[in-house]
C-alpha cells in the first residue's frame, strides 16, 4: 500500500472510531470487493459470500464502536480478521469442510482490459477458470495465502497481521502454496 493510501486509510479508521458513518460507507466502498473475493474463495458460493460480507461490515462497525478488536492496526486488517472468523462461524453452522466444488457461474468476471477482442477474452476467461479451479483444490491455508497476496494484493506484513503469523512464516507458506498450485496446474499437462 502506498504511503498516501496508508495515511488516507488511517484517517478513515480514526473517523470511523469517532462514529463517522460517511467514513464507514467510504471504507465499505473501498473494501467490499476484496472482502467479497476473500470470502468467495473460501465458501465458493456467491450468495453465501455476499451474505457473509454484509455481516462482516456490520460486525466491523460494532467492533469499532465498542472498542473491541483493538489489536487491529489497520482498517483493512480489521475487515479481514472479521471475515476469517465469520467464515469459520459459517462452516460451523453449516457443518461443511473445506472441500468445495467449482459450480458457480454467477460470479461476475470483469476483465481489466476492455479493449481486447472477443477471442482473447474467452482465452482469459478460460485461463482464469482453470486457475480458479485448481486454487480451490488447495488446502485452505495455502489458498488463503495466495488469495490475500496475489489476488487481493496485500503485503506479507499485512497477511502476517491478519493470520497472526510471522512474516517469515507467511513467506514460507506462500512459497509452498505456489509450488503446490504449480504442481496441480502441471498435472493437467
Amino acid at each position, binding site marked *: 500500500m502506498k*504511503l498516501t493510501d*496508508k*495515511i488516507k486509510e*488511517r484517517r478513515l479508521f*480514526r473517523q470511523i*472510531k*469517532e*462514529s463517522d*458513518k460517511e467514513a*464507514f*460507507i467510504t471504507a*465499505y*466502498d473501498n473494501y*467490499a*470487493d476484496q472482502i*467479497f*473475493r476473500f470470502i*468467495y474463495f473460501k465458501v465458493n458460493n*456467491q450468495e453465501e*459470500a*455476499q451474505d457473509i*460480507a*454484509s455481516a462482516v*461490515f*456490520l460486525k466491523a*462497525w*460494532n467492533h469499532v*464502536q465498542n472498542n473491541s478488536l483493538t489489536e487491529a492496526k489497520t482498517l483493512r486488517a480489521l475487515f479481514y480478521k472479521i471475515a476469517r472468523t465469520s467464515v469459520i462461524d459459517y462452516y460451523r453452522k453449516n457443518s461443511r469442510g473445506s472441500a468445495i466444488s467449482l459450480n458457480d457461474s*454467477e*460470479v*461476475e*468476471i*470483469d*476483465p*481489466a482490459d476492455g479493449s481486447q477482442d472477443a477471442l482473447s477474452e474467452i482465452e*482469459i476467461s478460460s*485461463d*482464469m477458470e*482453470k*486457475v*480458479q479451479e485448481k*486454487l480451490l483444490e488447495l488446502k485452505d491455508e495455502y489458498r488463503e495465502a*495466495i488469495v490475500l497476496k*496475489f*489476488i*487481493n*494484493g496485500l503485503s506479507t506484513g499485512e497477511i502476517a497481521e491478519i493470520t497472526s503469523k510471522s512474516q517469515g512464516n507467511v513467506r514460507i507458506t506462500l512459497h509452498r502454496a*505456489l509450488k503446490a*498450485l*504449480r504442481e496441480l*496446474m*502441471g498435472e493437467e499437462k
Partner: protein
Amino acid sequence: MTNQELTKQLNSLSAIKPNQTWKETNREILYSQISNSSTPIIPEKSLNAFLVFLNNAKELVAQPTFVLVSIFLIAFGIVGTRAAYTRPGDSLFIARVISEKAQLAMTFNEEAKTKKEIQFANNHAQEIAQILADENNQAQTEKLASDFKSELNIVKTKIKPIANNTETKPTDNDDAKVFSASVGHDNQGLQISPTEEKATTPSNDPHQMIDEAQTMFDQKDYSGAETKLKEVSTLLNNPTPTPDTSDNATSTK
C-alpha cells in the same frame, strides 16, 4: 509453468467482483443499520484520536526522516541557547529576540511581564552603548543609535504604568506628620527635615535617568549612557522605599 506466469494468472482473478446491485443495495442497508446503532461522539475520543494520529504519523514516517527532524529540533534548541549570548548587530540576535518574546508570552502576570519588557529593552540599550563604546564602528553607528532610541522609548513607555502605581500609593507619612504635630509637643513648632523630593542629590526618577542616558548617548558618551542605564536597571530591580518623614519630625525648644 514458472512462478511469474502463475502469479500473473492469479492476478487476473482480481477481476472477480460481487454483483453491483447487491453492493449498492447493501450499502443502503448498511447505512441504515449503522445509523440506528450510532453512538454519540465522546470528546475524550478526539484527544485519543490526536494521540493515535501522532503515533501513526511516527510509524508512517521513515525512521531516517524522524531522526533528521529530531536532529533539526535539537540543533534549533542549541542555536536558541547560543543566541542568548548574542548582542545587537549579531546574526543570531534575532533568535534572542524571539526567545525573549517567547518568555513574555509565557508570563501571565501583567506587572511581571512589563518588568521583563523593560529589562529586555534596557539590556539591549546597554549592549548597544557597550558596542559603540568598545568597537567604535562607524558603519553601524546610525543603525545602532536608532535601535538605542527605540529601546529607550520602550523602557519609558512601559515604565509609566509601574511608576504611576508607585506614585499613587497612599503613604502614611502625611498622617504621621499631622499626628506628630498635634501630640505633646511645645508650641515652638516642629522642625521637619526636608523631604528627599526636594534634595539636589542624584535623581531616583527612572524617566529622568533615561533622559540623562539619552543625552549622554547623543553626546557620544557611550560609557556614561551604559552606566546610567545600569542604574535604571538596579532601580527597577530594587525600588527605593519612600522615605518615612515621621521620624524626622523633631521638636525644638
